[in-house]
């Protein structure tokens, strides 16, 4: 069975060091064979929640041109607290 989506986002970050939100969502959409703006938004909300809870940190941000509007992008990194929560919840081996 595949891992639940927030767990996947955390483990992917722990393996990669740091990633931009679009890189993370692209990997997650591929993993779960999902497509579309709604699914992408759902994953971005999950990243906002993880960041608010202090499990991941925003280490960089940029504005990216997206048609007439610009889109805010974040680069994320796992925090020490995130690592300890991953260990607590069996997502990472101690």
């Amino acid at each position, binding site marked *: 069975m595949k891992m*639940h989506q927030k767990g996947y986002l955390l483990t992917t970050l722990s393996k990669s060091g740091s990633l931009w939100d679009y890189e993370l969502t692209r990997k997650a959409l591929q993993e779960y064979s*999902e497509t579309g703006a709604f699914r992408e938004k759902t994953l971005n909300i999950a990243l906002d929640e993880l960041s608010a*809870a202090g499990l991941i940190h925003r280490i960089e941000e940029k504005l990216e041109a997206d048609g007439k509007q610009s889109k805010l992008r974040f680069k994320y990194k796992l*925090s020490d607290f995130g690592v300890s929560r991953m260990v607590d919840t069996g997502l990472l081996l101690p």
Partner: protein
Amino acid sequence: MANISSDAGLSLALHKHYAHNQRWGFMWALWTAILWGAWYVPGTALWSEFPYSEIAVDQQSMRLTATAVMTWIHAITVFLFLLLWNTVLGKVKDYGRTIVRFKSISKWYALASLCGGPLAIFGSYMAMGFIGPVFAAISSLFYPVIGAIIARLWYKEKISKRAAIGMCIIIFGGMIIYGPGLFGEMNASNPNAWLGYLGGIMSAIGWGTEGAVAARAMDVSDPDVGIHCRFSFEILFWGMLILPALALFTDLPIAELVINTVTHSKAMLWILLAAACHAYCYTAFYKSFSLIGVGRGEAIGNLYAVFALIFIAAFTLQLPEWYFVLGLIFTILGSFVMFSESAESIANLRDVDQ
């Protein structure tokens, strides 16, 4: 020059992003209060329908049994509404992936369901039964304080001075709304009053702890999925443990109550309406924790005290007393004090390494 303007654009975009999350967090918490308030209409009306209308107020053990039965059927119905919600959101598979990780994640939702279900609901009914409904309502108002303290001590949730002041003002507003009614309810000669006080403490601890425990599990799982897990466990607790134990070890008519409830369309209609309110109230509740924290989410959720009276007045055409307006002003003021925190400060809810 180009750099300055792009830096300003980035700062503005960041502020908009944080403000957007803050607004959504408070909006979810407000929906919690509205739907919780609305729940009181079908929740109260259910007691007027057969088989519950046949149980006299002084039949304490039968009333507690009836509460257990209606809570179980209610939880099953809530589960179905949540299944619909998660099907529309495409999260049913994620529900399966989360609930199976019992040892590391979903056990926390099981604990949350124990705190919010048997502990808080039973506590609230004890407070209602042994002292009165006004005391039960007032004691429940203190649950955000318990939730905020546990969240602070357990996982360092930040509670700013402004959030704490706002929480106190909202609780004070709630006490103004319900407080005067308490004088008619307190009876010094009541020998069982201690059971009512115990129930009041149980309900505040139960709901406060539920928020803190659920938020801990939502660190690594989705709130929509989390609430679905929580109700799955509540169904199991009532249906596999509490009700069978009552049926086996007492002569209380559990099976008869269950059959009489599900075969009477009016009782089921009220349960359906109550469950619809409760399912989405709880969904909004859990979603608010992830964005604004347990303390703020629960404090805004406390506005249910206002909405419950508004909904009851709308359906019964009985206007609340004048002091309701005073309490309303305080609760709204408290909410604005909380909302006036900077969006950036809420972007990081915990005092952890940056």
